[in-house]
């Protein structure tokens, strides 16, 4: 009886509790139903619209990229339409059958077929299009269009590809374009306040961005603004109607300061030898000639290169991709001498009448170490003017020996050494302007007096890029002031660099100019052979960079058997004198003689520039 009562009360208790939970959940479910009701019935129209918006696919429309002109308004880089055969690898397809079928009326090269197979999987996983063949002919287009209904995911689209009309002349200065990756595209879209949506990327393809050179530096301006086409799609994603279109805005054309004619001259004269040519207009600091040699065809890079071709370029021992003009480091060698001379004048270590006797070598008193000149027997009694014309080493060894290294590096920095001298160059190197602190940090050695002596003739640790040499040349020509170099004028305010000196006067600059004119025109000048190549005056200073130190000419003859051991040839020049308009620098790797090898290139470029003015 007790048992039964207990069970009855227990059942009642259980019943109450279970009911309590059910009531609790009933409330919750009523809330869910109410919620569903409000979503589906009360705010139906809002969500219907939202879902309708989602029933669209957005396709980006790439704006036409700006055209790049030279300083006379001649087109250098243009956009050319090309008709491409494209597939959508994210859909299943049998490539063997496809090629067999298409191949009956469109011819494919082995490279095209190979790259299709190679890239198919990758593009499928990215949901990107894959270009089977570029530049279809009208006949091929017509033949395909007749049969187009047979292929679901194969189509022809018009694409603009970037064409450099002088693909090997401007490979490093203008650079090349390449395909735009998803992350960069997203950043650009956010930047242009076009909200990126997932579907945008599904169909995005064929978009390009500047990868190197001017194409890269001025990418934002050349690029323009993306447009959008918004299509309605059905539940399977098939395009139905064009609902809306936000037009794209074409990129801005870019007029550069590059000069086509002098660029051609530089290219012809360099004969694909390793080296660089940089020429600038003194009045503006505008780069007019800019060549790194050997070069490569930018069009091939931009529009797809086969694996083999790419490997060949990459493994080429002459390194065509390497931009020697802003990244190649070379000792300035004897070209540094005018700057060292000015340093001596400013610090009253020497004056123009100061004379020493040059026996052909210089001995450091402290340790009797001998520093040799290039001419056996020396130049006899010479002053600064003669030392520049004849390129006496002893004179500058001695001058450097009397110099304070900290003051000297400060002086050279004013001439552009060890710093960036260009506002819009692609990945410029700063070269190396050494000082005792730098040597201690990197070599763990103190600075020797001999290091300063070596710097007096531009050898040793000191190194500069060809564009820095051109800057130095321009500063000499302009008597201590020049705009920072750039490829495009009027894009941003020019930055003026002025060498602030206390003790160098116009007369000193003029005397330096006279000495440098003498390098070519004086019978004793080191570049006398250049005199006949021109009919006006040019100031210059040649240099020959010793890569291997030798005691005698006989020793040099042995080491020059290996081309890589031969001296580099360097020249800086400006003219026409007495009112110079252009400055130029030329470096030819392993060219051996600055005056007679690099010199003619500099004169030819100068001639073209002067003649065309």
């Amino acid at each position, binding site marked *: 009886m007790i048992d039964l009562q207990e069970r009855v009360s*227990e*059942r009642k*208790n*259980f*019943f109450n*509790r*279970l009911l309590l*939970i*059910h009531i609790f*959940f009933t409330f*919750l*479910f009523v*809330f*869910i*139903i109410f*919620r*569903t*009701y409000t*979503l*589906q*019935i009360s*705010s*139906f129209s*809002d*969500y*219907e619209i*939202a*879902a*309708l918006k*989602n*029933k669209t696919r957005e396709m980006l429309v790439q704006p036409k990229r700006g055209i790049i002109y030279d300083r006379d308004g001649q087109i250098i880089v243009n956009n050319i339409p090309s008709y491409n055969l494209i597939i959508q690898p994210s859909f299943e397809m049998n490539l063997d059958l496809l090629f067999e079928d298409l191949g009956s009326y469109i011819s494919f090269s082995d490279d095209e077929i190979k790259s299709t197979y190679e890239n198919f999987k990758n593009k499928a996983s990215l949901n990107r299009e894959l270009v089977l063949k570029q530049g279809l002919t009208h006949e091929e287009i017509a033949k395909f269009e007749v049969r187009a209904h047979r292929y679901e995911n194969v189509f022809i689209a018009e694409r603009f590809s970037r064409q450099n009309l002088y693909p090997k002349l401007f490979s490093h200065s203008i650079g090349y374009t390449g395909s735009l990756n998803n992350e960069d595209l997203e950043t650009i879209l956010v930047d242009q306040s076009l909200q990126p*949506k997932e579907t945008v990327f599904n169909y995005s393809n064929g978009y390009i961005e500047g990868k190197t050179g001017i194409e890269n530096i001025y990418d934002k301006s050349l690029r323009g603004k993306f447009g959008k086409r918004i299509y309605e*799609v*059905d*539940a*399977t*994603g098939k395009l139905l109607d064009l609902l809306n279109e936000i037009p794209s805005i074409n990129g801005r054309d870019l007029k550069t300061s590059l000069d086509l004619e002098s660029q051609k001259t530089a290219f012809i004269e360099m004969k694909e030898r390793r080296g660089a040519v940089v020429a600038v207009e003194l009045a503006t600091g505008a780069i007019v000639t800019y060549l790194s040699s050997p070069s490569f065809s930018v069009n091939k890079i931009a529009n797809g290169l086969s694996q083999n071709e790419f490997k060949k370029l990459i493994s080429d021992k002459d390194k065509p991709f390497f931009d020697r003009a802003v990244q190649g480091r070379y000792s300035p060698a004897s070209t540094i001498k005018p700057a060292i001379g000015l340093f001596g004048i400013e610090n009253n270590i020497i004056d123009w009448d100061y004379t020493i006797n040059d026996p052909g070598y210089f001995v450091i008193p402290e340790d009797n170490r001998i520093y040799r000149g290039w001419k056996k027997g020396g130049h006899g009694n010479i002053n600064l003017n003669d030392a520049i014309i004849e390129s006496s080493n002893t004179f500058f060894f001695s001058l450097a020996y009397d110099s304070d290294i900290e003051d000297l590096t400060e002086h050279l920095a004013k001439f552009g050494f060890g710093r960036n001298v260009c506002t819009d160059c692609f990945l410029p190197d700063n070269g190396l302007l050494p000082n005792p602190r730098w040597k201690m940090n990197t070599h763990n050695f103190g600075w020797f007096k001999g290091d300063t002596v070596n710097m007096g003739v531009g050898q040793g640790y000191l190194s500069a890029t060809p564009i820095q040499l051109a800057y130095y040349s321009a500063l000499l020509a302009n008597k201590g002031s020049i705009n920072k170099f750039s490829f495009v004028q009027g894009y941003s305010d020019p930055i003026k660099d002025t060498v602030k000196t206390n003790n160098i006067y116009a007369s000193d600059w003029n005397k330096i100019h006279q000495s440098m004119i003498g390098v070519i025109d004086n019978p004793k000048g080191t570049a006398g052979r250049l005199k006949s190549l021109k009919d006006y005056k040019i100031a210059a200073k040649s240099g020959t960079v010793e890569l291997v130190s030798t005691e005698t000419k006989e020793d040099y003859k042995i080491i020059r058997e290996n081309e890589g051991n031969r001296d580099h040839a360097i020249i800086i020049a400006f003219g026409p004198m007495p009112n110079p308009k252009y400055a130029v620098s030329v470096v030819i790797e392993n060219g051996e003689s600055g005056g007679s090898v690099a010199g003619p290139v500099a004169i030819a470029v100068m001639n073209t520039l002067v003649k065309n003015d």
Partner: protein
Amino acid sequence: MIKKFLNIFRNGAYIDQYLFISITLLSMMGLVFLYSASQGNMETTIKQSVFVFFGLILMFAASQPDPDFYKNNALLFLLISIFLVLLTLLTGKEINGARRWLDLGFFTLQTSEIIKVTLPVFLAAYLFDKPLPISLKNTFLTLLLIFFIVNLIRIQPDLGTSLVILIAGLYILFLAGLSWRFIGISSSLFILSLPFIWNNLLEPFQKQRVLTLLDPNADPYGSGWNITQSKIAIGSGGLQGKGYQQGSQAHLDFLPETETDFIFSVIAEEFGFFGVCILLLVFFFILFRCLYLALNARDRFCRLTIGGLSLLFLSTIFINLAMVVGIIPVVGMPLPFISKGGSSLLSFYIAFGIIISMATHKKLMRR
């Protein structure tokens, strides 16, 4: 064994026709929904059909033994399932940084789904003959076991399932007659410790989910994407829906996880409010049938088990729906009998098999 099996036919099988029919109906609806939600993927649908087929057989088989069979072996079942969960932690297959699955070759078993059933059965078997109200000692022993198992699942990590197991365990305790005083004290302690839990126990992504719930529009393309798209799908379904396989949200890949967690959104988009109501009606029918069976069960063990298992079913449905309509944060939780996934499906068939067994076996002694 064979003799026992033949006995079934001699005495008639133990079947509750209401539950059997309604669950079969629900399973069939599930297959139809899944076909659309998987973008018409025949392979997925056939695989699920096989699970449904075996699940129904399993449910039938589980309903044949006498409830005493479950009562007497409850501890064994629990120990086996704890062993499986531990095995999973050690050797389980890792998918997306979570170790939840045992690879059996033909089938990857989510072991936490088994313990979801065996724990309530064990608790009912343990508590059914304890004097009322439950002593403090028994309460703590039970809670200790529940928290131990919940924690095993939580570190896999599988927040959703561990939550359901916790809730199921607490139901049994509550139904078994946990004193109101204890409930009052412990729930106020829980509320007071909420800030501590938020700061120390929740992972950053879990906090993000809670914050997203409060304001899904703060980051509609990032963490709020799922819930925003789910609401658009449900809302755009309207009264009648867009029609079978016509849901643009589901078919254009805006909706995430359409085959599993967010399958309700697909249903709501394609069948509208109307379809949602029919689906909920079937769910409610099953639940009320369970309520009825629990109240008329033959003894306390059966009452507790039916109550606990049916509430497990109820809370799974609730968590899934509440998540999909954006009332609670996103936790991985399938919709029973509808979502893709073998382990969860089979465990619910077994759970209902046990319920049917308890509903149909009447006490023979002491008439």
